[in-house]
């Protein structure tokens, strides 16, 4: 128990540096259902040198790519594309395909297989069917922070913008063969976990440590990994980790979202610091639901100004206010692309619903999804 009661040390890291982790779907090329391909794919990619990391996830039809640390959007995207090409080459050899998207449109959760690793077996024992139903795919964005107090402050600041990230990444309209009517149905699968949602209100790293120690002493958690919050501090990386995003359909979008988080973080930490207020969380789950269900047309309630407006308006206004910060990081173009999506209410879910309307079957939707992810769609049509 000595180890358990040690305080968490927040590793100092260069502020505003970025890293992302992206969970991907492995599908077969026959009916485009999820397919058990991770072991073979990892064996192939493992033989080649590349930046970042490609690793197994809880089920064998999932892989995760994790980037190294980047200070700019462009270098992040470059690395993501390199890893993508490696994965696509591997999948081609194995008669498999890889795609983005927050959920697989028609897989049956009961058919998923848990990857043979002790931690995954433990999770499967603990959570039962939830572990298999957790076959959803997300993007995690890490933003570097100088110290633990900054991280807690940044976390509270970013929580207001969580709905933005849900809407811009939303790409899970279909689940278990049906249109859910949600822009992001993936987050519903996470809500069932006991430690999901948002972090309890603490206002400093010390307070967070007290909370963490209490939870440990109560025997509820062992490590930070047991928290499934939308945003959580990641002390061993020295970052704040945002976990609400669906895996977008393209890596360009994934890098764009990271650039958005970076610019927001800069803006939040640059403003004069006022104490974070617990009442800002009164609206949290309402806003989150609106974003998941209605996408760009969802309503956002601002607890400070008491204004109601659509997420589309709020996103456009926020992006406009970040222009200077974006220019500083060289991500003006990436943020411009997000603004255009908000203008036209285009996100992954809209694309997928459109693909379904055109192609007529969910098998075809996944096929198109895989071609889009591999960067082959334009050239093929």
């Amino acid at each position, binding site marked *: 128990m000595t180890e358990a009661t040690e305080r968490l040390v927040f590793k100092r890291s260069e502020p505003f540096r970025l890293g992302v982790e992206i969970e991907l779907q492995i599908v*077969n*090329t*026959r*009916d*485009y259902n999820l*397919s*058990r*391909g991770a*072991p*073979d794919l990892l*064996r*192939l990619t493992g033989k080649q040198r590349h930046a970042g990391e490609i690793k197994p996830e809880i089920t064998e039809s999932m892989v995760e790519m994790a980037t190294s640390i980047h200070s700019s959007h462009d270098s992040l995207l470059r690395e993501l594309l390199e890893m993508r090409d490696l994965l696509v080459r591997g999948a*081609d*050899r*194995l*008669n498999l395909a890889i795609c983005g998207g927050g959920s697989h449109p028609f897989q049956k959760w*009961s*058919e998923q*297989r848990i990857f*043979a690793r002790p931690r995954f077996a433990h999770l499967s024992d603990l959570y039962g069917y939830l572990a298999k139903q957790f076959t959803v795919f997300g993007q995690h964005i890490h933003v570097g922070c100088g110290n633990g107090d900054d991280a807690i402050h940044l976390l509270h600041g970013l929580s207001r913008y969580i709905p933005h990230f849900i809407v811009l990444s939303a790409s899970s309209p279909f689940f278990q063969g049906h249109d859910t009517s949600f822009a992001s149905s993936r987050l519903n699968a996470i809500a069932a976990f006991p430690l999901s949602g948002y972090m309890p209100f603490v206002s400093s790293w010390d307070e967070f440590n007290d909370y963490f120690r209490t939870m440990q002493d109560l025997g509820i958690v062992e490590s930070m990994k047991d928290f499934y919050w939308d945003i959580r501090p990641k002390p061993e990386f020295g970052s704040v980790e945002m976990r609400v995003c669906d895996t977008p359909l393209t890596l360009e979008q994934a890098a764009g979202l990271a650039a958005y988080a970076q610019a927001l973080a800069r803006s939040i930490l640059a403003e004069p610091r006022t104490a974070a207020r617990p009442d800002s969380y009164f609206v949290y789950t309402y806003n989150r639901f609106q974003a998941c269900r209605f996408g760009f047309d969802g309503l956002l309630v601002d607890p400070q100004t008491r204004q109601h407006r659509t997420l589309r308006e709020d996103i456009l206004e926020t992006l406009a206010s970040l222009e200077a910060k974006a220019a500083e990081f060289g991500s003006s173009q990436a943020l411009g692309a997000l603004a255009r999506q908000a203008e036209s209410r285009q996100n992954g879910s809209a694309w997928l619903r459109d693909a379904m309307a055109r*192609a*007529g*079957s969910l*098998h*075809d939707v996944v*096929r198109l999804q895989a071609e889009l992810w591999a960067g082959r769609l334009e050239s093929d049509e």
Partner: protein
Amino acid sequence: MSEFGFLPSFPLPSSAVLLFGTLMLAGLVGGWAVERFLSLPRIAGYVITGLVLGPGGVSLLDPGTLHDARIFMDIALGLVLYDLGHRIRLRWLVRERWLLVTGVSEGFAAFAAIFAVLLFIGEAPLPAAMAATIGMASSPAVVLVVARDLRAEGQVTERALNLVAINSGLAVLVFTLLISYAHLEQDAGWAVAAAHPAYLLLGSALLGLAMGLLGIALARWIGKREDAQLILVLALIAVTTGLARQLNLSVILALLALGVFSRNLDRRHAMLPVELGHAFQFFVAVLFVLTGASLRLDALLPTAMGVGLYVLARLVAKMTVIGTLSRLSGLSFRQGVLLGLSQLPMAGTAIVLVESTASFYPEFGIRLAGMVFAAVALLEILGPVATQVAFKLAGEAGGAREQ
């Protein structure tokens, strides 16, 4: 007497429906018992059930009944071969050339090894070549059904299915060429010798192509409705099988071609990947019970040495070639060996080939026919076990039917 006319008259008239139902029941019971008490794959149980009921056992299924049941076997085989053909993605085979090379090489290696063994024990060259050709093919039905039953997924399974399709097609090809050679030997003249294989091969491929194109056109017209497309596929399978029989074409080749063409020529993806699972359940049990019934173990004892050599030569050739060449297509050595093992089952259709060869070419001889029969019988029971073990050891068996 007349007032009791409502009573059935004895002996009872034969009924195909009754036969179908009885075979399913027998298969169900036998398959379940074997799975439960011996932990063997269900299909091995079906085959054993057939053996027990057939002429080699209690003779409940006599040759006449077997002939009546032919239609069920045809439909079942049609389903299997279509499904197999439909899993072949030509773009992948072209890109992953080594798999194609592996399939062709292991087929010819099996041929060479068996041929050598048969010559060694004193068979005449042409009959020996025919018997060796039959050994080139693995059993599409066994490999596919074991893969489906285990819900196996992964590179060993995927490649096993592709290899079966390749070596089955190849075996038909070589066998046809041998028949034309036999024509020559019998002084039938060049015209017949050339026309026979050309008709058989081109005809079968064209039939598959035509039906595939028809299917794609109809699928476009019906639209993406799963229920309607399931009927479409079942109808295509039945019509193609029936036509192939009527036109004296190769059912194996025609159905494989139907599957391959309907998938690979469907540029606009009009045909849905329909799930044949339920249709499979009905017919597969019947298929294997009937296969079992047409096997004869009586030839096993007198030819035991020959059979042993035949099976061993085939196994060693297949495993060596597949194990070696698989490294080139990115598999580990272990995966390659398991892939080789998965190809052990021998096709039940070999029986038909032997029978038709023996009637057309009497020199084929009772001894050789008996040996091939016995090898098939042995491998119909051991084969499913080998394939199951291969998929399981490769870690590719699913957990749906667990405990």
